[in-house]
Structures are given as C-alpha cells and as structure tokens.
C-alpha cells in the first residue's frame, strides 16, 4: 500500500490498532463487497448470478451508508438504505422478468448468447 492510500485511510479514521471496529473497518468491508460484486459481475456468465453481483454492489453501498450514518450520528444514511433496498427489489423483479423472457427465447441463461449487436 502506498503512503498515499494509508493517509487516505487515516483520514477516514483508520486506527492504529485493530482492537475496535471503527468506521474504517466498515468502509473497508463495504469496499471489499463492492469489489467482490464487481469482480463477480465481470467474471460470471450466468445472468442470474450477474444480477446477484449487482445486488452485492448495491448492498455494499448500503453498508457504507449505514456506517457513515452511524459515524455522523445521523439517520439519513439509514433512511437512504431503506430506499436502496426498495429500488433493489424493484430491479430484482425486472431482472427476473427480463431473464425469463430471454430464457424463453434461447433456453439459456448465459450472457454470451447475446452478442448479435456489435461494431
């Protein structure tokens, strides 16, 4: 890790000792979740799994929001999370509908089957 990144973390309250779970821990977890979701999205070909990965990214943001809300002693973050969950649910319904539609056409859940449009 570069010095720069460390100072960034220090700014966010990254502790000297790891004894307590500080804001930084939550943020790091959320970041990791986001990245895991992203990597999953990029590597998996199954449309349902890919969608779940995007949910993972959404929820990563949710964790960050809750953590920041707690940090700021403010409820806005948590409120935001409620809305994010709602939207995620709406998206999930749409995703499933879309996936069903696609499955009917090609009897496959692979994203690779859909690359007619290009150039």
């Amino acid at each position, binding site marked *: 890790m570069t010095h720069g990144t460390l100072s960034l973390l220090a700014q966010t309250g990254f502790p000297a000792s790891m004894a307590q779970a500080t804001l930084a821990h939550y943020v790091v977890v959320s970041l990791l979740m986001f990245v895991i979701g992203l990597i999953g999205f990029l590597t998996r070909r199954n449309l349902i799994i890919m969608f779940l990965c995007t949910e993972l990214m959404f929820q990563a943001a949710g964790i960050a929001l809750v953590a920041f809300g707690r940090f700021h002693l*403010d409820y806005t973050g948590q409120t935001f999370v409620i809305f994010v969950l709602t939207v995620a649910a709406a998206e999930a319904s749409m995703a499933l509908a879309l996936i069903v539609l696609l499955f009917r056409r090609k009897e496959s859940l692979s994203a690779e089957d859909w690359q007619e449009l290009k150039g």
Partner: protein
Amino acid sequence: MIERLAYLWPEIALFIATCVVMVMGLSRTYATRKATATIAALGTFSAAVLSFLTTPDGGEIEAVSGQLYLASMVPYAKTLIGAVATLLLLTMAGTVDRAEEADIAKGVRSFDPLRSNRAEFYAFFLFSITGLMLCADADDLIWLFLALELTSLPTYIMVAMSTARNRGREAGVKYFFLGAMGAAVFLYGFALIYGAVGSTNLNEIAVAFATGGISSLGMLGVLLSILGICFKIAAVPMHFYTPDVYEGAAPQVSGFLAFVPKTAGFLSILLICGAVGWNYVIPPDGVSPLATVMPSAEGTQLPEVLRLTLWVIAALTMTVGNVLALLQTSVKRMLAYSSIAHSGYMLVGVIVGPGIAADSFSGNGVAAVLFYLLSYGVMNAGVFAVLAALERAPGRDGEPREIETISDLKGLCRSHPMLGWPMVICCLSLLGLPPLLGFFGKLPLFTAAIRAGEIPLVLVLGVNSAIAACYYLKLAFAPLTEVADDADGDPIVAAPFRTRAAAAVISAACVIGLALGGNLLMQGARSAASYTEADAIKSRVPQANAAPVDRNVAAH
C-alpha cells in the same frame, strides 16, 4: 413544505396521467385503449405547460426550490423536458402491440388484458419522464438516486419490449445489466459523499464543501458519482452499451433514450458539480490537487482534479463517439455514436460552469448545456422520428421491418418529401451547420469555453465537429442528393402512423424556427443557469456536520 408541493404540479400531472393510462389500457374497447396515447400526450403537454406556468419569479424560487444554488434551472429544465417529451411521444404511436391490435381488429384473436402491453408502454414512458422531471427537482442525494432510477428502470423495459425481435431483447439485457452496474457506481459515490459531509442534502453538501473544503473522500465520492452517471449520458468510459442498445431498440425508443437518460444524467451532473462549486483555482505547483481543496473568491473553475477528469472524459467522449460513428452504415448505430459525441460537447459546458461571465448567455457554460439539451432533444427527435416513420413494406415473412442502413434513406426527399427534408434539416443541424439550431446550440459552448480560457478543449471540439461532419454529411445528403436504388429488398414505405411524420416535421420546423427566434429561449437558459455560490445560501442552510476527521468517533 406545501409550497414545494405546488412546485411539483407537473410531476403530479404526469403521475395522474400514468395512472389513467394504465387503467384505460385494460379496457376491452379499442377506442379507449387507443386513447391512452392521447392521454399520455395530454399528460406530458400539461406537464410542460404547468412547468412553464409554475415558473416562480426571482425571490420566490428560493422559497419553493429545494436546492438553492441552481434553483432557476428547475422550471426551465422541466419545461423543456415536457416539451421534448411531447414531441417524443408523437413518435411512440404504435410501437407495441401493433400486430396484436391488428389481429384483434381482424377478429383473429380477442383482447387479453394480460397480454396487452400498449398501455404499459405509455405508462413506462410517463414514469420515465416523471423521473426525469424529478431529477431536476432533486435537492437531496436520495431524491436524486430515486429519480435517476425512476428514469432508468422503465427505459430498460421499453427497450426490451419495443420490438419483438431478438435484438430488442439483447439490447434490453445489455442495457439493464450495465445500467445496474452504473447505478451501483454512482450509488457508492453518493455513499462516499454522504460519508464525507454527513448529509445527503445538496444544499448542505454545497455549504459544507464551501466552508470546509472537499476532503479526499468527498472528492472520491464526487468522482464516482459522476462516473456512474456517465452511464446515463453515455460518456466514456460508460458508453459501450449505447450503440448496441440504440440499434436493438425500435428507432423511436432509441430517440427516447438519446434524450431522456441523457438529460437526467446532465441535470444530475450539473447538480453535483453545482454542489462542488465552480469557484476553485488551479492549485499552485507542488500542492496536490486531491488534497483538501478549498474554494476561493477568485476561483472560476471546478476543483482541478475534477476539471481534469471531466476534461479527459469530454475529449475522449467526443472523439470516441465521432470516430466510431464514421465507420457505421447502420443509421441508428451511427446516431448512437453521435449521441455519445454530443454528450462530449455538452460536458464542455459542464467544465466551464457559470464561468466568469455567468450573467451572460455567451459565457455561461451551464446555460449552454441547458440550451444544448433542448436543441439536441429537438434535432434528435426529428431524426429518429423519420426513422420511425419509415419501414420496409411487409415482405415474405409478412412483417414490416425497420430501415437500417443509410442507403435505405436514399432519395427520400423525392419519395417522401415530408420525411426526407426533416431528415436533411435535422442532420445538418446535428452537424452544427449554421444557421440551424444545432449551430446555435454549439456556439454558446464554443463561446463559453473560450471565455473560460479552455482553448484546447475548444479546438478538440472544433476538430470533432469536423469529423462529425463526415458522417452527418452522408446521412444528411443521402435523402437529398442520392437516388434510391430499388434493387434490394422490399420497397420502403411510410409507416401508418401520421404522428411520427408529424413529429419529424415539427422537429424540423423547430430546428429552423428556434434558430430564427431562439432569443427568448436563450434568455430563459441564461436566467435558468444563474448560479448562486454556496456562501450566499449558507444562511438558509443549517450548518452541516463538519469534516469527520475532527470527530474521531467510533462507530460504536
């Protein structure tokens, strides 16, 4: 709060229309089902009128508006959204259920409410427009997030259902999944901004940035938000989906996509950049641009790191869009790439911001963006309306196909003058040829950027205009100078929807008319773009939480 509600009348009107449309779509009577389009049009039109009528005067704006620094932008943006939406709606006629309705009319099959999509389609349209208007209204990151999602989610479905072919499905899936990823990115950015400031209220964020400076975390949040929203405006690096989606969707839906999410994206970017503020100076040598950036009274630009990022994005977006458009033979794909390029042009206005001459139209980048959104909406609607208004006569498979390549447009001015000429005019306007609207859209970007000293960017813009001329020229003159070669395929005929042609003609008329009499609109854009610096709104905003560094509080 009740006066805020008054301010939301357009959205309310749209929402009512949506509900009515959804219900009427279930009617067994053909006439009632058919009326959904009219109701939808009434909805958008009345939204536009209401936006215009509810435009508050100077001081009143602050009373009713949520966010305070670009308060005047809201009514202008909503009016233009309503107007262009009405125009777009004209092109939507008959998009879905055409075959089914025909079958029902012939008595081949009976009406099945579970299978009918027509009303849903209009409803989604209206939802999306509602979301778009709400974007303009946003004064909170949560609101902004919800509005953006409300804008986008219906469009995913519209793309997928706009045609019955596999391409539409493919476009839908690409659009949806990549859109979800983009949404996750800007959502994470919002979270980081919240983390840095402790508030999701845009006003409070603006004040916090203005008083405490922008921390690295905040800057990262802003960057991620903007990058995520770049998906909506189809800017590099979030542009990849654009050509495929535009090509896969029906032309009228592509036209819709080129305006609605893009406008939502630009309004959001303007709001976020407005919160950051255009009052920073270039940091002196040796000082990291990302270290806590403080605004200053002399400052006239975005924080350097943000400016540079946007600069690069703008330049890349224009260039990538244009060079790829050069290679296309498919009209929609070409227009998709050109839509990318146009986003790049508009980003120039964002970079400039209100500029040093904020009170003049020629120097205000925000005003330029707002005016360009309007001009782009009109020209773009015209071009896609022409595409929507044409189809190949049903061939062996008995199904009309949409036209695809540029050569399908050859000789259009002779075969369908009412479609050919709008195509020519709108394309020349998109090219930026004076004295059409597109030129007067681009000129303020030019002048504002030059007044802000962004000369290199102007040169990039100029060179890109020239590159763009290459392919627009093909598109503009294929109908005019070429002769149709009837050799291949089924003949090209006008689609049986008068409103689509009407939309094309209206767009072309606007392209000329607004160029001749656009002064009022420019005036409107100028006053809409008046930017209040955060210092001035401080008194009206409860002090936001200070930077988190000061308060080393544990999460538990």
